[in-house]
């Protein structure tokens, strides 16, 4: 494994400025439901123990925490994430579908580029195995937000978040778990969907729901989901 990674690293360096982080964005084909399903089905079976080893070997732990629970406001939490979503993200970084320009996904793009399909499947299996954890936020029960989550808002054609992300925010397949997500990251990625910086979702399956949310809504949703795991429900 080590050898393969190192060779990948050298290959990456050799390939040089075509892959430069500050250059033009390479263009990857957008997924369709069919191509994505096909790709995910073709991914190898993940190995949890190898995934854990890679998590350390690739220093994912220095940002995402020992078990994938981000120790910082800066990084996304990966613990308890669905296998499919983690795999999709790493593939998206690797092929530059998720490429939020400046200051955001450069690290993930470079790391994903030295990961094989097997590596990706392994870490995904490892994260899926970990428990979600609540993030320490001040949340006071907010009936309006909880209704938005559970019932949506017909006036702005908003499908309930829970109908896709699950009643406990636990996710399902390529729809991510969002319970216990770091609120600062949650806000940023929602804003990124809203403003078109993040557009790796299939057929705008997520970003379409962000357009009519106010900054206040997004913040409240972030806090609600952050405290959700193990909280009242």
């Amino acid at each position, binding site marked *: 494994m*080590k050898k393969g*990674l190192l060779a990948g690293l*050298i290959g990456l*360096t050799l390939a040089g400025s075509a892959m430069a982080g500050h250059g033009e964005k390479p263009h990857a084909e957008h997924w369709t439901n069919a191509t994505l399903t096909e790709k995910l089905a073709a991914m190898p079976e993940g190995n949890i123990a190898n995934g854990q080893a890679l998590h350390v070997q*690739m*220093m994912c732990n220095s940002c995402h925490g020992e078990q994938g629970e981000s120790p910082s406001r800066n990084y996304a939490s990966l613990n308890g994430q669905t296998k499919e979503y983690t795999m999709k993200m790493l593939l998206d970084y690797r092929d530059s579908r998720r490429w939020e320009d400046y200051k955001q996904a*450069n*690290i993930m793009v470079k790391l994903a580029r*030295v990961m094989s399909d097997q590596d990706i499947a392994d870490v995904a299996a490892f994260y899926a195995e970990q428990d979600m954890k609540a993030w320490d936020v001040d949340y006071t029960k907010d009936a309006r937000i909880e209704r938005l989550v559970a019932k949506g808002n017909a006036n702005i054609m908003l499908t309930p978040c829970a109908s896709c992300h699950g009643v406990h925010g636990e996710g399902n397949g390529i729809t991510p778990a969002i319970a216990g997500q770091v609120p600062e990251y949650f806000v940023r990625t929602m804003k990124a969907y809203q403003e078109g910086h993040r557009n790796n979702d299939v057929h705008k399956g997520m970003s379409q729901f962000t357009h009519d949310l106010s900054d206040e809504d997004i913040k409240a949703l972030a806090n609600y989901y952050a405290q959700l795991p193990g909280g009242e429900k």
Partner: protein
Amino acid sequence: MSQNKITRRDLIKVFGASAVAATGLFGMSAKAYAKGANHVVIIGGGVGGSVCAKYLRFADADVKITMIEQNPEYITCLRSNDVMVGYHTLDELTFNYNTMREKYGINVMIDQVTGVDYDRKTVSTKNGEKVQYDRLVVSPGVDFRFQDYEGLSKELSDTKIPHAYKAGPQTLLLQKQLESIPQGGTAIICPPQNPFRCPPGPYERASLFAEWMQKHNPRGKVLICDPKDRFTKDGPFKKGWERLYGYGTDNSMIEWISGSQGGRVVGVDAKNMTIETDGDDHKGDLINIIPNQQAGKIAQIIGLTNHSGWCPIDRHTMESTLHKDVWVLGDSSIADAMPKSGYAAGSQAKVAAQAIADSLHGRSPGKAIYSNVCYSLAGENYGVSIAAIYEVRDGLIKPKGKSAGVSPITDKPAQPILEAVYQKNWQREFVKDVFS
């Protein structure tokens, strides 16, 4: 108003205007300036000078600050090695002083300082200005010792044997020379003797040249002729070279001749593109002699240097030990274990800013804590770093606690990739800390 010819009246205008501009931020007013405000004059608007000006403003909202810089724009040496191989443009590394003026109310004069009268506490300039100070800060960078090499001169460095150790036209000249090396040709890099600015600089340059050649001149070679037997971060650098450029094998793209192997350059024959060393003569298609260095020329002229050619300072405050009420920062200063880097210059400037504010208000200075972190590239996606926190112990600036360390050499392939990205993030933050 022409920036080069600032009259006394203009000066007041500038002061007034900048004070008003900054009022919102720091609660200053033009009136507060007019009456007996302390005046700190800073020579050199590079890293040390600019950070000092800005943090002095944080430490003291009312002090009058004038920074005298000879060029209207500053090009950072930081990442100028990248320019030579096309990862950056010089344009991206160029900064002006508008933010200094507008946001921090600093009077930036574009002029060259020619002398200082310590008795009258007056700085004089090429354009004939006389500026009075209460406290003086000097951060003029380095001066190159061409005289240490037979056949080398400033003129030659501008035309044929560039050092490119001050970012600007020579950076672009060296880039052109790299691109003109015939297939299978040789680039010679000659690092200076210690101490010198940016200790990893020559080795990063060698790395990036080798990487460029892999793509554009695959039989090309980089030859490093060094007067020294060791260099900073040599462990991780050499590991990177092994991994990327076959260092240590017969096909290595980088060859390093150490001092004890006769690597020291003693002269250059520019016509025949040959260098003379303690060992063999070497012919190159590009010759990059980075000369030995000493404190910036103005520091020598105004008597701030000692026999070493560098400026002795009080380690607790960065105040000169040779002249009172004068501070020396950055490359020019003798800061013991701290390298001559931009990070270090900024770190010292913050300590000095606080010490100057304290001295103006009759407070005794706090304990000095310095820091330095240098990121270098052994390849575009291969970073190596060194980091330390410093304090004054036994009269010298020394690493504090167990903080000093270079990148560990591990078998973790992500480490150098991450450090290369961190380097980019760091560089963006760093120039913000200096100029925005």
